[in-house]
């Protein structure tokens, strides 16, 4: 490959990454600002919602993740901070999973592009899988 062509591909890759950042960064900043604000009010209620129950904790985590949006890295940062607040890892795992596999906000677009039946079944299935995977992950972690 010629040097000029390589330079062009590298430039294109750079601007594509920059474009992803440009689109995602304001959403990430907005969500982090919002989470920090909600944290101040909700901190005292976390222990009541997330009790350490192996079914209810991931269910609540998966529900929260399903209605959230943004690039996955944002869910890791939020999850990491919530973990410090004492929320169980099982709930965080379900939250991270459903964040990018279940997209309530993007459901109309998914239905339009890939079909209504496809979008509904996929999101429903992914919601259940988010809970199952979070439980399996924590159980496996206990073994290792």
């Amino acid at each position: 490959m010629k040097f000029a062509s390589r330079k062009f591909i590298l430039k294109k890759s750079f601007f594509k990454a920059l474009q992803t950042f440009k689109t995602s960064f304001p959403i990430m900043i907005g969500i982090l600002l919002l989470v920090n604000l909600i944290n101040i009010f909700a901190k005292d209620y976390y222990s009541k919602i997330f009790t350490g129950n192996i079914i209810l904790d991931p269910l609540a985590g998966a529900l929260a993740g399903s209605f959230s949006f943004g690039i996955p890295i944002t869910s890791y940062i939020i999850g990491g901070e919530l973990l410090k607040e004492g929320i169980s890892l099982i709930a965080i795992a379900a939250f991270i999973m459903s964040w990018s596999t279940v997209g309530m906000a993007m459901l109309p677009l998914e239905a339009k592009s890939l079909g209504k039946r496809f979008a509904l079944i996929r999101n429903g299935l992914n919601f259940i899988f988010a809970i199952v995977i979070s439980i399996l992950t924590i159980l496996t972690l206990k073994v290792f």
Partner: protein
Amino acid sequence: MKKLMGKNKINGGIKFLIIVLIFYLIIALFNFSVVKNAFLNFLTMLIKIIPMLGIVFIIMILVNLFFTKQKIAKHLGENSGTKGWIYAMISGILVSGPPYILFPLLGNLKKEGMKNSLVAVFLYNRNIKIPFLPVMIYYFGLNFTVILSFYIIIFSVLNGKIIGWLIKDRI
């Protein structure tokens, strides 16, 4: 290239950020200390993640460099067989892009013969993003990251099989 850099239009993300800032401003009028604490916590969080975002950016460039949409289209056709499943997994992991770009792209690939099951496998593996893995390891540890990624890959196949079974492809 100009197109990639975008025009001076305000995108949805910036609008969302402005709404959040207005929300902060309204709460500050009633309780300034709450907003001050929330903002200070946000700044602490941001300072911690900025170096990681630098690493994420470099890995994103590398992935974009070696993996193009044309390559996916080539390997995910209707007669792709077992290889198609493997390509769908790898593509889902390596291809970056927001859903509003990927859904129409996958919609087009479906029209060109991509199976429903492979679309599902592709979308499920989007949950593993190599550029973001250092951040996941930082917050949750290597064991958690490896185990979760392993289950995502296994369940992506199960996801594809169930969807392929429930939704018949139009041939």
